[in-house]
């Protein structure tokens, strides 16, 4: 009974994904009929310059916003855990995770428009840092569960300076959380569509991959999308696997 039920649930979760992967190798390119095995759509995918341009933009946005959020989020988590935090800080660090995407998107568009800021990749990065910081902070905070605050005192008593204490004591303990948080942040930013869509501005120079995928799905599906989806699915799964390893603390301690 329990096995049958779980098989059905796993079927529900994985059949759609597996269908896309299977279709990416379908010569006919149609979801309706199997035209034999082919890697034709992958060849087409690699010849599509738009996709590479969008991928490049996405990697830039995800990398820079993760670097900034990695620092801000880690500091935020340390400040909240080592010193006492208050309700305002807690709420501010929590809101970006729960605010509906569309609301943050229109709020940022209003803000940038009011400031008359030219939109582009930089405005997407600034926007992504908001939610990425909150997620990095949340993940790093979970590492403090394993943290015995007495060791900071011990380090001071033994004559360790603040910097030494941070480098030798605190950072190694929270590092797996920082890595996991940054990987999560990278994935979120890599996949994020609505906020990027609103803060990218007109013109195609700052189109990100999710924006391109959206227009491919919404306005005329091409079979290449299945091949592209397969790549993105595998890519996300690899990142999750790495992140899973680092949260378990296999990297350190």
């Amino acid at each position, binding site marked *: 009974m329990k096995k049958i039920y779980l098989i059905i649930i796993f079927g529900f*979760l994985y059949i759609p994904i597996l*269908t896309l992967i299977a279709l990416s190798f379908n010569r006919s390119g149609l979801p309706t009929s199997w035209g034999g095995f082919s890697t034709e759509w992958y060849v087409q995918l690699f010849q599509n310059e738009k996709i590479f341009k969008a991928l490049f933009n996405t990697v830039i946005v995800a990398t820079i916003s993760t670097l900034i959020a990695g620092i*801000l*989020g880690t500091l*935020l988590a*340390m*400040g909240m855990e080592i010193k006492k935090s208050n309700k305002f800080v807690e709420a501010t660090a929590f809101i970006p995770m729960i605010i509906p995407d569309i609301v943050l998107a*229109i709020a940022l568009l209003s803000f940038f428009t009011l400031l008359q800021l030219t939109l582009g990749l930089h405005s997407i990065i600034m926007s992504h840092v908001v939610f990425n910081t909150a997620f990095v902070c949340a993940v790093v905070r979970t590492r403090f569960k394993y943290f015995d605050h007495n060791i*900071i005192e011990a380090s001071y008593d033994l004559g360790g300076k603040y910097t030494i204490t941070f480098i030798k004591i605190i950072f190694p303990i929270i590092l797996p959380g920082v890595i996991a948080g940054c990987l999560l942040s990278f994935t979120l930013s890599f*996949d994020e569509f609505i906020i990027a869509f609103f803060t990218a501005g007109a013109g195609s120079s700052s189109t990100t991959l999710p924006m391109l995928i959206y227009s491919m799905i919404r306005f005329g599906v091409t079979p290449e999308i299945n091949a592209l989806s397969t790549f993105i699915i595998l890519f996300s799964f690899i990142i999750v696997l790495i992140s899973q390893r680092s949260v378990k603390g296999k990297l350190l301690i």
Partner: protein
Amino acid sequence: MFNNKLVLPGLVWISLFLLIPCLIVFTYSFFERGVYGGIEYNFNFENYTRSFKWTYFKILLTSGQIAFISASVAVFIGFPAAYFITKFDSKIQIFLLFFIMLPFWSNYLIRTYSWMVLLNNQGLINNALIQIGIIEEPIRMLYTKFSVVVGLVYNYLPFVVLSIYASLSTMNKEVIEASEDLGGNFFNTLFRIIVPMCLPGIVAGFIFVFVLSIGNFITPDLLGGGRFLMIGNLIYDQFLSARDWPFGSSLSLILVIIMLSLLFLQSLILARKK
């Protein structure tokens, strides 16, 4: 070194790019749309009274209805999954949970698109049903409320399973045995012991799906095909096509208020539990 200067950079960033933008939206919601789509700084509550006119209120109700159905379905099918997972060895439990969560990490657009492929009139599900002989003509499944609910449940189910599992796994197993020893049958034990005890997980899962569904834009847009609007689509339209930013702002604010009241409700339920 460790005073709260550490939190400052993060707080400043979030304040600058979230709190202030939200305050701007809040202010805009009391103004009017200008002739060419700008903002006319003329204070009134017109946008809010307009939001509750039937044309728009209907959209709000539809959004609530779809969010409610999706959240209920997700909890209804997620609860047994979480419960059955706890019946395995603890090593297998981690393994199963990992694979429940895995799809959750792949791209949302792609996961939604996969259901467009499956639910299409010429899609796999219709084809399979015709082949088996259950139906003769394809059933229209895509671009209906049904397909939107399927998409939302699919996307958020992993989290529901996880949150119910988290509650179940902290539960004292002896209480269940006690109930069985005292002659409680399966359904008695389930509804009088297990469900009340893992209520926090169920509520958290339900509210998570509800909140993410009611303000959703992508799923109703792709799987609803624009045949009916949800509040997220309405906000999108106000900002990008109708260019009535003040009205869009008031709708956003209503959405945020709904969301915050639900989270407040959740904290009340959890507080009562303790």
